[in-house]
């Protein structure tokens, strides 16, 4: 159970972020916190995978899908849920350890951590991109269908 404790912390940290970004509706706050917790849960559940990048990518896809789903149901911008929900995935640790290595003039470690962090950031970007593109295409298709008859 302790393995999954970070999900709870992610939930609470996202609640803090909801206040920082001034989300007011309780339902929105709850849902963005849930998105944040799920993002880390998916990441943990994929622990069997070798590649960090793939874990980040798949977790981001789940988060983006959830945000788009909430956005469609509640008729609100997906950004609200996405901005909060994606924060636990931001590779802050990698960034810090890369900086730390740089200060200690350990350039091999710096390069390793730096590339790792960049790769994870890229995976997150790719995840968001894939989902947003597909959702846009689906929306365009639906709009063109509604116009025809």
């Amino acid at each position, binding site marked *: 159970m302790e393995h999954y404790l*970070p999900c709870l*912390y*992610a939930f*609470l*940290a996202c*609640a*803090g*972020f*909801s*206040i*920082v*970004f*001034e*989300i*007011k*509706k309780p339902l*929105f706050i709850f849902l963005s916190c849930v998105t944040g917790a799920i993002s*880390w849960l998916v990441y943990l559940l994929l622990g069997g995978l070798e590649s960090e990048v793939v874990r980040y990518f798949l977790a981001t896809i789940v988060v983006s899908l959830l945000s788009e789903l909430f956005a469609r149901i509640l*008729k*609100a*911008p997906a*950004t*609200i849920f*996405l*901005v*909060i929900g*994606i*924060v*636990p995935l*931001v590779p*802050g*640790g990698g*960034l*810090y*350890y890369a*900086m*730390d290595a*740089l*200060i200690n003039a350990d350039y091999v470690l710096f390069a390793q951590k730096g590339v790792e962090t960049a790769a994870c950031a890229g995976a997150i*970007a790719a995840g*968001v*991109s894939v989902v*947003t*593109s597909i959702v*846009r295409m689906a929306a365009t298709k639906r709009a063109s269908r509604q116009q025809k008859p």
Partner: protein
Amino acid sequence: MHSKQVELCLNFCCELGRQLIRNGAEIYRVEESANRMLAAYGYQEAEVFAVPSCIIMSIHYGERNYTKSVRVKTSANNLDKLDRLNALCRRVCAETPEIGTALAELKAIVGRPAYPVWLSYFGHGCVAAFFTLFWGGHFLDAMIAFLCGLIVKAAVGYMARLNANVFFINVCASMLLVMVPVALTYAGCTAIHTDKIIIGAIMLLVPGIAITNVMRDVIIGDFMTAISKLAEVLIVAMAIAVGIAIPFGLARALFGGI
């Protein structure tokens, strides 16, 4: 008489667009919303161009061309207002109320109060504390991170009021927050995890909305916006890195490594 209507509509759409950008909307959302609203009011021949710092709208109506441009300078990142502005925009498109009514509603949304200051401070503290726990820090680390969160909020708020630039704000804020655990470590409090505290508190400075919007704007094909936003993200990241490096470097130069 007609020309007055056009100008009012233009003013309304520009102001709504400006508020959307200020509160963290993607640029494509701003352009789409403005286009839809102008179309709803019957101005089919309209062009909207927006970048993160400026909006230009032109309407061709009757014999004349009407253009207005607004500059967007400050940002507020208020997702509650973003949601309400988006809802207002949907309503305007569906019902096309009188411009005066719509403008009054817009003003009401813009004037909505933010969270009280103490709650905002508490929120910043919680983010830092829980992210420290999230990254594997202990309870004591979380308490110190909470303090760091308060410092970040105070520093960013104070410097933003003085119109400091983004780079300098982030350098100073991250420098101040890093100083706390570093000073404690050098004062002999070695039980704390400096790295976990800093990682937790730094989350507050990560430009989350800009990063998310960059990706979404790239998808839509708005590369100009994406590049300018990406520049902002990179500058902030660099500022945070510099801010982290300064206290460590100074401490090591003055007191030697631990």
